């Protein structure tokens, strides 16, 4: 019965042209990824024609020591830089939200700078800076990741700051006053009232920062040494000698990791869960 009625003024979901448009958008966005994943199971050296199903390239990727090392590097860099930039970004956000001080507009501008500055410029700048500071090449494996990590923190903590600040903007200041009024100290108020409020912003900011770090190419390319390749840089060097399904397989794994992280973050943020944990 209700299917017969014509679509209402705001019933956009029921208009045919809009549905087609939506479909086209999804195809445009996801077809490359679907093809990438599909061809990781292709039993062929070349990535052009479908030859049959296989998982041998996953095994090959797993056995490729340098690829695995790059993957590990990427995870380490992402984990460390995300933790650092979440803390730094949150602190900056709270400072900008909470206090009034003379150089505040300047600091706000400086905060946005790493976001708008072209990555290539930042990569070169960091390269020059690190080589002047003697941080490049001289260090062995785990410490050699330091410049990459610092670089990633530099460009990702402003994103965290922006996300957390947006969350803080909706905070009711009287909650803070109520907490003080009830006898809590400034620290207790921060810990029990403000921090729980910031949590969704912190999770979103950390997720953003991890994603940015995992797939960053340009800045990493300039700041990593030969022994400290990350996953995207390694893939790039592999692709230069022809895209094998091994690359597809490795990329599929990366997509999976990102997907799992996103699902976890969404689960953590869902209101139903927030209620049972608090």
């Amino acid at each position, binding site marked *: 019965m209700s299917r017969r009625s014509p679509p209402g003024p705001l019933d956009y979901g029921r208009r045919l042209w809009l549905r087609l448009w939506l479909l086209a958008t999804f195809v445009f966005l996801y077809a490359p990824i679907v093809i990438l994943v599909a061809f990781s199971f292709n039993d062929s050296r070349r990535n052009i024609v479908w030859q049959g199903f296989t998982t041998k390239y996953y095994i090959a990727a797993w056995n490729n020591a340098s690829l695995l090392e790059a993957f590990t590097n990427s995870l380490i860099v992402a984990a460390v830089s995300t933790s650092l930039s979440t803390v730094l970004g949150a602190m900056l956000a709270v400072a900008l939200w909470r206090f009034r001080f003379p150089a505040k507009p300047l600091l706000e501008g400086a905060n946005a700078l790493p976001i708008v500055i072209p990555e290539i410029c930042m990569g070169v700048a960091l390269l020059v800076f690190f080589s002047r500071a003697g941080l490049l090449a001289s260090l062995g494996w785990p410490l050699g990741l330091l410049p990459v990590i610092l670089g990633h923190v530099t460009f990702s903590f402003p994103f965290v700051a922006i996300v957390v600040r947006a969350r803080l903007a909706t905070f009711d200041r009287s909650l803070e006053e*109520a907490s003080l009024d*009830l*006898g809590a100290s400034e620290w207790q108020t921060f810990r029990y009232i403000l921090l729980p409020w910031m949590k969704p912003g912190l999770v979103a900011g950390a997720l953003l920062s991890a994603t940015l770090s995992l797939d960053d190419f340009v800045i990493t390319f300039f700041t990593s040494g030969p022994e400290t390749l990350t996953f995207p840089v390694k893939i790039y060097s592999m692709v230069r000698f022809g895209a094998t399904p091994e690359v597809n397989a490795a990329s599929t794994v990366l997509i999976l990791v990102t997907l799992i992280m996103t699902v976890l973050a969404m689960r953590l943020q869902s209101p139903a869960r927030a209620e049972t944990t608090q």
Partner: protein
Amino acid sequence: MTAPVVRIEDVSKRFGRVVAVDEVTLEIPRNAFFALLGPSGCGKTTLLRMIAGFERPTSGRILIDGEDVANVPPNRRPVNMVFQSYAVFPHMSVRRNVAYGLEVVGTPKAEVERRVAEALAMVRLDGLADRMPDQLSGGQKQRVALARALVKRPKLLLLDEPLSALDRKLREEMQLELVRLQREVGITFVIVTHDQDEALSMATAVAVMNLGRVLQVAPPRELYERPRTRFVADFIGSANVLELEAVEREGEGWRVKAPGFGWLRLCTDAAQPVAIALRPEKIEHGPVGARPPQGSVAASGRLVQSAYFGDYSRLFVEVGGIGLVCYRYHRGGSPPLPAPGESLLLWFRPEDAVPLSA
């Protein structure tokens, strides 16, 4: 018991050039239900926030229980507040909200549990202890905020426009509830409100504020019956304010000339009046030719308009070029309302005219 719980001495607060509170001196008696009443922007909330410790006076002193609290931060003051927005912590259950103020100061667990249960019972929320704030109605959130403040057993409970966000029915219910609570716990309540009905029906004493100053402090009845200034007369209830045309000293009181009504005697030892206030219900009316009782002052006027309110009507009458309001109560057997344009006789007893000195 007779010492006031709060003394405010010459307190002023300026925000830049704006004077929010202007040299206020005020005593809040112990166990009172004290109302700060005034239009929005009159400085009443600023005064309340200075008592709570969220604002510092620009000058003057605030003493709580005889102690100057200038350097006492809000978390150390024996004062708790119910915020206008309730400020119930959204990520905590009702129970945790109420327990918060005890837990942060390290109260033993068993005592916290007992006192929280007591406080929740007091505001009749016992069944909802495990609800989250977003599952509560506005009235219930209000009760959480109350319980959370009362559980601390403060010397003073401050309420910032506590009922303004509730609908009318709930508001009336909460008014009674607040009065009951205040009697039960024996804590001094200070309520900020712009609603005169709220102040009059709940408070034992009311301070009327305007433009940062306290104009009059009195029990509700006195405030209504004997306002001292035009502002108070006009703000509390409705009043007809008649500017006096002439004032003469006569013995103990004054002989004054009111427009339309002519000369009358005011028995007052107060300062020289500049105007008189007449409550609408104190003005009687009748047809032209009616005989007002002995000693009353009468004038004839013309009905401009009447407005029907169910149990009564408001009559807008023009007397000697000024508009007056009086009431007609619809009792059984009352004569029909006069039509607009008809002439009427108005009269009142001189002792019902309230002299205003400013």
